[in-house]
């Protein structure tokens, strides 16, 4: 079957395929291992950017868990000015879309970053209202529908690009938050961020992470993510970007069937640096093998 269409649309952005690296899980902008061209992916979601430079948390910052990991990186990053000066020009040369993840401790922080990004080549903003790691950080916005709506509306007013709001799974009802940010004017939602966890070393009787708690990610959280993507997709009309434990095309297609218009691959990249590229390739193969003309026809297409 010729003419397989893998493209999807988020906001006003058409992506050549639905696969991206998840924020913070693979800094393509440092072109780390140079293992495959960034242009193989529909877009790249970059690590959270603050208004200022962030040293990150004290180590240990990561721990392996059954089929996954805990992280408490503490949003280590260069700050928006350095990012615009040094990283964006480098990224611009690649034939892919650039999604900049924005973080802050208070509404003004988000607005400062969104304002500075307004005239850059960033194609979209992803607003991280959900990172559970920074003590005074985004968590307050992500778990309270009113605050989530307010910060979305405030950023929406300033941003020149479409705005994705990234949701925290650490809430009682994901539908409520998804609806709240939709009312705030979000162009899309992405989920899930990591699930807050903890690990204790029984031999030393100490916390494994210096931060005590960390965010759980990887295949261990995939079924939770699929359920939440499904719920969010049924609660809102805006597109949903699904992530959480995707390791291959099958996991990604599961998200798409649950209602995701696009997907992001995070932790899986650490154990297989080709995971995102292989996922994109695998989706195309699945479409070909099943004679499905467009991946868009699979969005939310799960049946009883």
């Amino acid at each position: 079957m010729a003419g397989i269409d893998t493209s999807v649309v988020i906001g006003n952005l058409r992506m050549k395929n639905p696969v991206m690296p998840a924020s913070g899980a693979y800094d393509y902008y440092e072109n780390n291992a140079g293992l495959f061209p960034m242009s193989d992916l529909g877009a790249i979601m970059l690590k959270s950017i603050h208004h200022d430079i962030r040293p990150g948390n004290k180590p240990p910052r990561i721990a392996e868990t059954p089929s996954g990991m805990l992280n408490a990186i503490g949003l280590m990053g260069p700050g928006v000015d350095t990012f615009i000066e040094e990283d964006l020009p480098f990224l611009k040369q690649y034939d892919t879309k650039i999604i900049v993840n924005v973080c802050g401790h208070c509404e003004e922080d988000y607005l400062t970053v969104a304002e500075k990004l307004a005239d850059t080549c960033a194609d979209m903003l992803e607003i991280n209202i959900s990172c559970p790691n920074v003590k005074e950080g985004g968590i307050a916005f992500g778990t309270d529908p009113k605050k989530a709506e307010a910060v979305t509306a405030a950023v929406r007013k300033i941003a020149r690009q479409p705005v994705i709001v990234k949701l925290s799974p650490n809430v009682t009802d994901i539908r409520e938050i998804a609806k709240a940010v939709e009312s705030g004017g979000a162009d899309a939602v992405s989920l899930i961020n990591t699930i807050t966890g903890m690990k204790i070393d029984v031999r030393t009787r100490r916390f494994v992470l210096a931060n005590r708690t960390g965010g759980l990610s990887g295949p261990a959280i995939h079924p939770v993510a699929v359920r939440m993507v499904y719920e969010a997709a049924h609660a809102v009309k805006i597109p949903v970007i699904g992530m959480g434990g995707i390791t291959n095309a099958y996991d990604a297609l599961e998200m798409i069937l649950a209602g995701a218009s696009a997907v992001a691959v995070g932790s899986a990249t650490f154990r297989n640096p080709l995971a995102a590229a292989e996922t994109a390739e695998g989706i195309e193969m699945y479409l070909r093998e099943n004679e499905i003309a467009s991946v868009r026809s699979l969005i939310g297409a799960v049946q009883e």
Partner: protein
Amino acid sequence: MFITAKALTNRIITPGFGRILLSAPQIAEQAKPGQFVMLKYWRGIDPFFMRPFSINTVDRAGGTLGILYKVVGQGTEILADLSADAEVEILGPRGNGFPLEDGMTRIAVIGRGVGAAPMRFLAEKARSMGIGVRAYISANSEEHLFDKAAYEGSGCTFTGCTDPNVKVTDFFAEDLKKMKFDAAYVCGSKRLMKAVAELSDEYDFAGYVSLEEHMACGIGACKGCAVRVNTKDGSEAYARVCKEGPVFPVKRIV
């Protein structure tokens, strides 16, 4: 580089410690002393992370990499059980190696136990450049002085120390009184690192340390492998062991 290689041999050399030899010509060609590789040699998603290992030996002509390992948990237990012709995924070589310059006349390599693994590759490389090498290696017992014969075979002066009450750097300190060293390289123990940092205040040589930290990606992406580094103004700053390291000037850490 991310490749699938074949193991050529894998054997336990003394209870709890093994050596694996991998056929990986492309990586052997590029590898520099002090660099490491991320390995995966099991199917499925548990354990989740690849495992970092220093490069212990490189044979460019033969296209092989040697790893010296200690069995400490699930990942290294699987490694010890790996059959000789197993497939191993290798991401590497990664990180910055030990700085080694042509004009050097004498260096010290210092390490403890299996932590001294990268020192053999460094020592052999230095010898091939005509640099004099003194190796100061400590271990719990004589059979844990793993590469003793190799150091001696490549013309290094080898000092082994298995006495828990003696620091192997004391021998280095004695030699410093008698001869000039251009650089000292240390790994495998915080205690040894501190001693080298102190000696580098007193004598004029460049000190380098190779660090270990838990790693998820090994390529600078996750920012999980952070270590605190010194800054001029004392402000809080971290470097990634996998990307800015694993080798650091010892003064940047101590």
